């Protein structure tokens, strides 16, 4: 008796020896996940979404020498509605991040995010810049991080294989995107541009800090009878004692 590689022995079923290579015995619950994952992992369509330098290496990866088609990923889609994977290929700036989050929300589930390179993963060399978001994971759930500045095509392929392995582990029964109770569960609130980038999930913190700053300012004014010009912005300098 032969059993398939996907399930345990099915009691009472006999397979003739000559058919053992062609017959798979399993049950629907055990078959569904591997079949479903197998189909999805081999047809991950990334979005045409070049942000910065890493995009050039992303193009190289898709081109003939590295040949992303071997993984079923060569079909780069220009619209988020047809994409499964968003490769964040470059520095995420504050001006751009509302667009990125909006595009992510527009992608159909299941959707994956691959953070390519140092900038997308944590700000990279530009981390301290006033217009730079220090890592896309401040806003989007990232599935795979690929290090490098920029990552070589080999590194990106390695990251994509890691994503495939992650997909292999998923199950329809537990995947968050099939939850029916909360249809907006996967959506990320789109940040807005005010005097600086405003993450709407942080509104309470912002209000609290503003109140604190106001109080400090008032205290300052009381302390110095001749009030100096109020500081233009809050500046967060290093507390030298901390070092």
């Amino acid at each position, binding site marked *: 008796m032969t059993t398939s590689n996907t399930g345990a022995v099915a009691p009472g079923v006999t397979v003739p020896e000559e058919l053992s290579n062609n017959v798979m015995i399993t049950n629907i619950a055990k078959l569904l996940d591997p079949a479903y994952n197998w189909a999805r992992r081999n047809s991950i369509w990334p979005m045409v979404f070049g942000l*910065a*330098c890493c995009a050039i290496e992303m193009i190289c990866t898709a081109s003939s*020498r590295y040949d992303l088609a071997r993984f079923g990923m060569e079909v780069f889609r220009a619209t988020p509605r047809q994409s499964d994977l968003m490769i964040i290929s*470059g520095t995420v700036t504050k001006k*751009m991040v509302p667009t990125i989050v909006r595009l992510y929300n527009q992608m159909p589930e299941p959707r994956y995010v691959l953070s390519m390179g140092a900038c997308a993963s944590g700000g990279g060399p530009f981390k301290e810049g006033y217009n730079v978001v*220090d890592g896309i994971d401040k806003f989007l759930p990232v599935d795979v991080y690929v290090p490098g500045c920029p990552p070589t095509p080999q590194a990106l392929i390695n990251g994509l294989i890691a994503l495939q392995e992650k997909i292999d582990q998923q199950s329809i029964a537990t995947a968050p995107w099939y939850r029916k109770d909360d249809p907006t569960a996967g959506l990320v609130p789109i940040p807005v541009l005010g005097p*600086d980038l405003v993450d709407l999930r942080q509104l309470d913190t912002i209000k609290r800090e503003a109140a604190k700053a106001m109080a400090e300012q008032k205290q300052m004014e009381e302390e110095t009878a001749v009030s100096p010009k109020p500081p*233009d912005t809050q500046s967060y300098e290093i507390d030298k004692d901390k070092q």
Partner: protein
Amino acid sequence: MSEAILEAPGSGAPETLANPVEQAISALKERFPEAVVDDPRDGYSGLVVPADKLTEVALALRDDLGFDYLSSVTGVDLIEDGKLEAVYHTYSIDKGGSAVVLHVQVDRDNPVIPSLVPVWPGADFQEREAWDLLGIQFDGHPDLRRILTWDGFHGHPLRKDWKEPFYEEDTKPFGSRWPAGGVLRAEELNPYGQNVQYPAGWVPTGDEYDVETEMYAITGADLAYSIDASQQMKTDKITVNLGPQHPSTHGVFRMVVQLDGETVVDLKPVMGYLHRNHEKIGERNTFLGNIPYTDRLDYLSPISNNLGYVLAVEKLLGSVVPERAEWIRILTVELTRIANHLWAIGFLLNDLGALQTPMLYFYIERELILDFFEALTGARMMNNYMRFGGVAYDLPDEIRGQATMEFLNELVHERLPRAIEQGDNLMTHNEIVRARSIGVGVLTRKESIAYSMAGPMLRASGVNYDVRKAEPYSYYEQLDFDIPVYYNGDVYDRYKVRMDELQQSLRIVRQVLPHLQATEGAPIIDGKPSYAIRTPQPGEAYGRVENPKGELGFYVTAKRRSSSPERYHVRAPSFINLTSLGKMCQGHKVADIVVILGSIDIVLGEVDR
């Protein structure tokens, strides 16, 4: 050493020529005896012009003295003097040579300078940038809005007293990280844990977020009906956004297009989606620490960017570059140009609808060049290769198992010519290419100079100007090459300029290879490689190179014995070339916008910096 420092741009041209810069400067002083004076600061070489005389001086320079090309507008914050400064670099297209530099200083609290857009339309985006980042108001500018940050952004970030949210210290490396070792993460110092800060007392209400009102007020609000004369049919203009996520925009670039039917009435580029604060970060970095950042400007030609920056700082330091290093520099820079143009042409054809095929034809040859760079510098793209006074590494012994010289010879004598010829056969006389690109996006000679275009854009409009010939750097004077010039100024001519430049770059590389063989084993850097570099003298320097995209300039000023630049400004060719995009697209169809943009060959890392 000090001699070299005093020899900043403006006085650097050889004595043997009748120096046009000195002639122009003395003529200006004669005409404006009270107003125009030499810059009194140590190490500065330009002229100081009062703000109210600027337009007259600029007109005199442009019309009477032949300095008709405004290359760069730089804002500088002189916080110690309580002043803001605008620095203008003007060149003569016909005579070549170095720049006449104008410094205009205004009070920091009331910084108003007359706009030079009426004189040089190419000042448009550069003045907007100076307004955005430094808060200099340009009086008479037609559209003075923020350009790299967004409407509603708080403050002017390049002012010295504007501190970033993740501000740690004035210079790198930070004391908190090195050498004491006490690592503090910037997130821990910022109350939001993110790279944000808000003005004191600002409380979000949720109403103030529509920051694009001004944008549309200029482009789209004018929704007047226009009447088609022939059919008496009322048509409505519509505003369409292309980008920032659009497959044709070569990155995160956005165009707000006003359409009448399918015809473009007006087009406004919107940029800053990749503004990563190159200049602010550069003013905190050490001189050496800036080199890897320059790689990330025009990321299709990193080594070329290195060279521009290194040339500027070498003027401050007075370095002498050994012979072998100069040859290696030219070799790498020209190979970069080839790699860039191969893809620029590939992208252009992509935009024309030949999706990926031409790019893939050139792909293997570009990969071979990248293989060489990887063996030479350790990185395929971000090479970080130039050093002050030389280069970082000597040529490798072998590349992918093949001896280096053999590899290079095969590349430049066989592989590349074959690939270029193949591309030429496929594309140059292709009917679709010709139909889509001839007569599209025309820029006349006069316009291209006025708009401060650079590189292939300029040369396709009949202007014979190339920094390698006009103000030769490195060993370009000793090399035999031509500057391809075409005269129609359309997309097709830009394509042909790039095709011909490929041939000329190959010609240069072929001349360089014997020199590399002859100088084998010679030093590649001036003295010992040093890390703690300090400027011996105060002063300014402007280094410029002919990048594949056009003239790339670096304006660097420093104090005496300083380890980082005081002001660090990049004259980015892609950014300034975009000034004319709206003009070129007017009257064309939507599909042509994509092609015209492709023919400029922009790289967003450089546009937004």
